């Protein structure tokens, strides 16, 4: 009787408890070890997950999923809001380095995956995912250490570029695979290109409508954060329900809203306390979805891929550093700052599930890569920003 009650209780409080534990660990580790908070959230979430013998059940499909999507969408909105398209036009070498680093990462990881005899399609999927930098990790780390400067700005802009390229490539691979495996060509095209275009269009529509609404309401300064958060929530639910990409929509929303110029104030970055809370949830959620068990078999490949991805990204960004107006050193640090991967991985895979595409299971070792970069990626980003001397809250050791 008593154990049963205890179990019911534990199930009832599982998520709030996990969030409380992760938050506490995050604060302590930040204070004592200067570890980025999101790394701690990830480690805590991973250890508390049922897959690892913890008390958190696999959260996929539950109400927590929508919240995690919402949390991620808020981050993407903010990333979009910080992207200055004019910069990419004025400084074309920057855009070029973004395309180069994404494409060369794709090619290098693909070659490596094939060398480890992964089948072509999973290898393509893996390479497409490896292109992207985790926008959540880069943005949260940058905000956490209060960094501003070239490395920060460049890492954020290149992250936006490689995320878009990654999604495009991923959708194209999925489209190609569907084309090969089912006989509806229309369905395949619709799923890749259509999804992309419609998602961006919905986000763009929000980007026009919400600032216009805000102007009507007035007192922009006070209402902007809440209005954008509410709109992002609606956008996430809507795109999710219609099976479009909430991620692309949120990114487009932020980008268009920025260029409609309703200006967020400094205090509202991260979406304040709401953003802080949801970030804990997001990172716990992601790590809790990971299952370590199949990973050790592929450990050699995992390490090779992580290393190659890091090297290629850093080299590609460094190559164009001087042409795009900065030093070799800052170019290299920008590449390093773009190490994190992962949140995108899971959320990207999410909408493909309803297509009966169990890509996650196809790509051996992806989990381990995700986990490794989830925990160590933010640490590398943090160090890169500190070495660049762009941080405010933490000084170089």
């Amino acid at each position, binding site marked *: 009787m008593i154990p049963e009650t205890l179990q019911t209780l534990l199930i009832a409080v599982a998520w709030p408890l996990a969030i409380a534990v992760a938050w506490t660990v995050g604060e302590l580790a930040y204070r004592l070890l200067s570890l980025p908070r999101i790394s701690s959230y990830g480690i805590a979430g991973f250890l508390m997950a049922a897959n690892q013998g913890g008390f958190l059940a696999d959260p996929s499909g539950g109400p927590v999923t929508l919240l995690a999507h919402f949390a991620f969408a808020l981050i993407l909105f903010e990333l979009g*809001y*910080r992207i*200055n398209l*004019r*910069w990419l036009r*004025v*400084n074309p070498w920057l855009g070029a380095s973004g395309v180069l680093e994404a494409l060369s990462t794709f090619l290098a990881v693909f070659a490596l995956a094939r060398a480890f005899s992964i089948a072509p399609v999973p290898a393509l999927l893996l390479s497409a995912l490896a292109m992207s930098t985790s926008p959540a990790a880069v943005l949260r780390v940058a905000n956490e250490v*209060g960094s*501003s*400067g*070239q490395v920060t*700005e460049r890492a954020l*802009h290149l992250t936006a570029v490689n995320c878009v390229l990654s999604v495009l490539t991923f959708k194209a691979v999925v489209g190609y695979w569907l084309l090969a495996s089912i006989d509806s060509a229309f369905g395949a095209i619709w799923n890749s290109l259509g999804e992309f275009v419609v998602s961006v269009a919905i986000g763009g529509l929000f980007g026009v409508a919400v600032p216009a609404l805000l102007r009507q309401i*007035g*007192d*922009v*300064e006070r209402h902007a954060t809440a209005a954008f958060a509410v709109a992002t929530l609606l956008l996430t639910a809507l795109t999710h329900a219609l099976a479009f990409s909430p991620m692309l929509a949120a990114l487009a929303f932020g980008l268009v809203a*920025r260029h409609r*110029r309703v*200006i*967020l*104030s*400094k205090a509202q*970055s991260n979406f304040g306390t709401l953003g802080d809370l949801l970030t804990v949830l997001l990172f716990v959620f992601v790590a809790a979805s990971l299952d370590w068990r199949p990973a050790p078999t592929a450990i050699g490949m995992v390490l090779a891929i992580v290393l190659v991805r890091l090297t290629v990204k850093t080299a590609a960004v460094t190559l164009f550093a001087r042409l*795009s*107006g*900065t*030093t070799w050193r*800052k170019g290299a640090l920008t590449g390093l700052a773009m190490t994190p991967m992962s949140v995108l991985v899971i959320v990207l895979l999410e909408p493909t599930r309803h297509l009966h595409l169990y890509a996650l299971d196809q790509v051996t070792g992806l989990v381990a890569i995700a986990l490794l970069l989830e925990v160590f990626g933010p640490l590398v980003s943090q160090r890169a920003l500190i070495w660049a*001397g*762009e941080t*405010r809250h933490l000084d170089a050791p």
Partner: protein
Amino acid sequence: MALTAFKAGEALTMGVELELQLVNWTDFDLSGSASDILHLLQAKKFPGEVKLEITESMIEVATDVHRHHEQLLEQLRRIRDQLVVASDRLNVAVCGGGTHPFQRWSERRISAKPRFLQLSSLYGYLAKQFTVFGQHVHIGCASADQSLYLLHALNRYLPHFIALSASSPFFQGVDTRFDSARLNSVFAFPLSGRAPLIFDWHEFEHDYFAKMEKTGVVKNMKDFYWDIRPQPEYGTIELRVCDTPLTVERAAALAAYLQALCRMLLQGDEAAPIEDDYLVYNYNRFQACRFGLDGVLVHPRNHQSLPLRDDIVATLRRVAPHARVLGSQAALDELQQAISSEGNHASFLRQQFDAAGSVQGMVAAAVTLFRKGRIRAR
């Protein structure tokens, strides 16, 4: 270390230094990008001098020595254009203004140069709060004694420069109701204020500077934060009360006004300055900071109240013949325009705040104005 010998040169030459703000394009807060911009500018030939300032979100540019307003303005425009090109490549915006309206001083990063780090440890939060942006105007002097004479003869005109350049109504996120809130930050420093009334350089050097040096409080002239100070190594006097205006056009006009005023004063049209002139000095300076062009001065000699605006108009008329000789009527026209219709840049910023409804919108307008150069299209 004794005071540097005064490098006397041609009288009435002029040079301008501007401390400019670096802000980001997203929320228009200050951006710590000075060394990145400096690195980019060093790659090309920069039409002037450019250097780091105490915090990483500030950059200082300086012109060469000029005789004419036109050349000064032309160089300032080239400097501006090149700064705009470089900052665009780095996604940073450059603008004028005496303060950044909403930056938090505690968030500033001190530049990694020994002098700045030492100042920072001495002055503590004052050093970071000193993230304010001024225009310094140098006027060449034919002799050291002339520099001391000019420095004091200018005492009663100082409020003109404060009011005309004022562009710092907001500080730490609020409207201070001052037109120049920046000067309040400067006054916090122990060695700010006025120079002692000494007209003889030898006396200044041995009876004043040497004694001060012996106290250990100062090492060189740079340690004095006076409103106007002699700069022996350049052979100039340096006017330091101006906020950095929002445009280089206004900056050049202020320099030309000072040049014409100095020419008038050097001709000895006015009674020599005396210690009692300074009785009303701080009060008048306050009036100019607080109310800008709407301030009311007390005349140091006859003790009558006179509106600052009227005093400037009258002075512009008196220096007009000198401006004609120096070829700087265009500069006086610009200032006349500010007085009669546009107002100073503090009022421009307040209008922008009202129009945009946010401090960020105000900085955005300052960025645009810096590039464009004029409030109204000609």
